[in-house]
């Protein structure tokens, strides 16, 4: 791995991973069909695990671009879910 690739993957893991898990927490908090506080805690429980998985993903795929791409894709899905579920 080149230093550039390592830097890029590290940023994808840290910033991308955090953004991904934040969006996951937000999406699940508004979209799950359960009382609000339960949806919130469920989202948080999943979000932390997802953050770790995102970091692992970032270092296991073939290229740094792919690391960013995968994280961005899942983030977009959660972002869309949040927009669908959030109160108008």
């Amino acid at each position, binding site marked *: 791995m080149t230093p550039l690739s390592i830097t890029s993957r590290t940023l994808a893991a840290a910033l991308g991973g955090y953004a991904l898990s934040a969006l996951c927490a937000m999406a699940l908090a508004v979209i799950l069909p359960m009382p609000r506080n339960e949806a919130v805690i469920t989202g*948080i429980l999943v979000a932390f695990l997802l953050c*770790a998985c995102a970091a692992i993903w970032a270092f*296991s795929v073939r290229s740094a671009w792919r690391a960013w791409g995968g994280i961005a894709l899942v983030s977009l899905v959660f972002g869309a879910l949040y927009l669908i579920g959030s109160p108008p």
Partner: protein
Amino acid sequence: MNGSFRQSMAWLHTWVGLLLGWLLVAIFITGTSAYFREEITLWMEPETHDSTLTPNTLDMAVAVLNDKASDARSWDISLPSARHTVAELRWQPLQQRQQQGGGRNRGESVSMDADSGQVVEPRDTAGGNFLYRFHYQLHGIPREVGRWVVCLATMFMLIAIISGVITHKKIFKDFFTFRPGKGQRSWLDAHNATAVLALPFHFMITYSGLLLFMTMLMPWGIDAAYPENRRDFFSEVFSRGGEEAQRPGNPAEMVDIKPLIAQTEAHFGKPVTRIGVTNPNRDNAVISLRVDRDPAITARQRGGDPVQVYNGVNGELQETLLPSEDPVSPSWRIYNVFTSLHMARFADPLTRWLFFLFGIAGSAMAITGMLLWANKRTQQLKRDQVPGSSLKLVNGLNMATISGLMIAIAAYFIGNRLLPVTLENRGDQEIQVFFLVWLAALIHALLRPNRSGWQEQVALGTVLWLAVPVINVLTTDSHLFTAVAWQHPALASVDLVCLAFAGAGGYTFWRLIRKPAPAKHAPRKKPAKRTAPSTTAPAGENS
């Protein structure tokens, strides 16, 4: 990415481990001590030791409160327990009611000797709370910054755990493999054994560590579901039940609390541990008697103890409150289980020791991982090649965090006994002793990042841990040779653990000075390599 998925995981595990390893070792060691933080605090306040619960303790407590705060807004009496020898008396003065601006109003408090009724003023010390706070927010930097740094390390550890599991295709076979006396291999086996043995514990402690700081780390879900006000979430979930304080009524004589206590203890079949009085010495006084609830790890952490509430003037029973039987939803159950396991507040003494041992296993895992990293690179050196400066740095930092931290903790305890009791800012000075000694150990480690450096630090650590109980004999009346210490097993156990650490340190030292066995491939001897077979020695040395 070169090689297979497993190789990239091994790479990630190695480098993430190295980057945050030192911090994790320090967090693990201080965090493990936190399972006994009340015992440590007790030990560090020898002025409170000679105090035992008597039938008259309550009467004396009421007398003290009447003397100090007869017209308070409320009183609160905590009777002594196995982990706390004195009675704690707290009260909220009437006047402070208006200035309820921001922070919690803690009111005032004194500690009372439970058999003489005298107010006790223990020496100024942060006690076990210093080590406890260090493990989640470090020290000397802004609290928020420290917490974020610790949480970052925690997330790294979660990543290291997951990637570590992936790295081991033969995880169970590895667990049952131990090849002592083989340098590098032994370290790897020890690292695997401590990691896999306590894997559920490691996962629990890291994941719950993140959950405990979820409001700081991940507030986005709360904000998304409660756009109006984040506080609604907390009041929905963590409310402790409203305590609507009435305005103080007219002066009146209060009923004798003792018979009420007998009544409540008969009702619940348990001793009353806390007594609260609202509007004491008024005609609307209310007395609430609390017993400890049965521990349940899925329950909420705070509140919910069984309480009986009495009219404070005529002694009539007003209501009996039991822990709420509301079904807890699955997600909250998961949250509750993880966070209660992390703090082990529910634990009886035996379980607490078990957690302590798991914490030691965790420290050992982090330590063996760090030593493994340095050892591997030392062995890769060619014959007569001198270790490079980066390897020396890693070696030095390993030494400073492992033996250096253990030396500093021992020095913290010794400082507690030797610093003059009347010293100004004594509590802070004890903490300074801790950091100065740790700094000295760091400098020494960086100057001598080799086998003799390790020998010197381990020897010093052994002497200091042995010195703790000895100095305790010389400076207090509640040491291992007195009944007072044994009356409170919590006290004796602190001294005994110090002796155990001294023993483990002595054993490590012995392994370090023994001449290395003539290895077949004659790898270069390097720091602590020879301690390899004694997985328990470095482990036992680190609480």
